[in-house]
């Protein structure tokens, strides 16, 4: 495989930007949701849980449509963002990032929830007796102990956002240089007969991008490696 063409570079960099922004934005929201689902008890918890799973269940095109209806130029949410912080989504890379974030959210919430539920609460109470307030305890005990789930959420979310197609093309359109991420470029190429090589090159780029994220996360996991030590058997 020879070097990348300028067009391929453009697609790759855009994909990187969209995924990075999507995951950065989704991470705190997903963590908050995971926390609520893992730690709180409230009426309608199952409803929240179901809503979080929605983008996974619905065909991506439908999610894209719902985004269009919610964040379109004339839609209330769309107008709200445009008027308050001047942020518009339709046909913009920000829209691609929004679509990617929404699609990645359910995966991220589940992974983090799983780890949060496994944290030994007795350790948190030990930290409290040692003078750490709830927030400090969260930062020094809960968060690091839930790290495996957070890393898994990062990898899953990044992989999912790198592969996101249906919601993006429906909501943000397929505009080269603005919203044409790797999957959209691949889709365009796939429409033409005899484009297998082009498709393969772009798909390889996607894979490289995600393998990078994967290796990084494994490295982070090992570095922070909870020192389980003393494994018997």
């Amino acid at each position, binding site marked *: 495989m020879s070097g990348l063409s300028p067009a391929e570079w453009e697609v790759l960099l855009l994909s990187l930007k969209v995924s990075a922004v999507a995951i950065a934005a989704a991470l705190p929201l997903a963590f908050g949701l995971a926390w609520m689902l893992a730690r709180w008890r409230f009426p309608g918890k199952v409803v929240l849980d179901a809503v979080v799973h929605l983008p996974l269940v619905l065909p991506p095109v439908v999610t894209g449509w719902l985004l269009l209806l919610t964040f379109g130029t004339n839609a209330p949410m769309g107008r709200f963002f445009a008027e308050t912080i001047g942020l518009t989504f339709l046909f913009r890379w920000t829209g691609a990032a929004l679509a990617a974030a929404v699609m990645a959210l359910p995966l991220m919430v589940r992974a983090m929830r799983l780890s949060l539920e496994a944290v030994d609460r*007795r*350790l948190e*109470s*030990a*930290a*409290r*007796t*040692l*003078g*750490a*307030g709830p927030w*400090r305890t969260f930062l*020094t*005990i809960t968060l*690091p*102990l839930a*790290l495996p789930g957070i890393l898994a959420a990062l990898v899953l979310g990044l992989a999912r956002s790198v592969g996101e197609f249906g919601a993006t093309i429906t909501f943000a359109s397929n505009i080269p240089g603005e919203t044409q991420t790797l999957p959209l470029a691949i889709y365009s190429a796939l429409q033409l007969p005899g484009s297998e090589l082009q498709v393969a090159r772009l798909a390889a780029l996607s894979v490289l991008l995600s393998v990078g994220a994967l290796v990084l996360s494994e490295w982070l996991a090992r570095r*922070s490696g*909870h*020192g*389980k*030590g*003393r494994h018997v058997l």
Partner: protein
Amino acid sequence: MSFDIAVTLQRGHVRMTYEFAAGPGLTALFGPSGAGKTSLLDAVAGLVRPIEGRIAVSGATLFDRAQRINLRPEKRRCGYVFQDLRLFPHRCVRDNLLFGWKRVSPDERWLGIDVALNLLGIGHLLDRMPATLSGGEAQRVAIGRALLSAPRFLLMDEPLASVDADRREEILRLIERIRDELSLPILYVSHDRAEVERLAQQIIPVEPAHSAA
């Protein structure tokens, strides 16, 4: 009074009532397994909320249901050596020991790190992770962590259960010094009669709990 306690706790179907006022020095809780000793320490530390009553230590009210006082655990400044240790598994021994230490101002500290490491014999373990410690080593780290947080009173739940005889003697002497020189109130649980008789100014019998109807 160093400990002024009159509370009722509920755990599962079991309800436990405690009522005593202890003078200065070390107060031992003595009673059969399952009587509710750990539960009481948890309540004094603020980890279990009593359903009724009042807890005061050295004249300061930590909990009073009638007055709606319930100090948060981190405000109570207790040094709690847990029966199940609860070392932080993701942090090395050094970080465990310094966890509370870092959170108090230097002039409040009353125990030097070097002294603690020496007396507890854990200086060579600083870089180890808790999962690699032997039972006695882990227990000594747990004691060190509680003492180094510069607490105003101590809650010790069988702190010497798996410590060997020589080390136990040294730690007992350290506890006596803390009791006498710093006059820190200490609530102490042990099944060892000799230990209790040697250390305690007062022995509070804890009666086995009865199932609530």
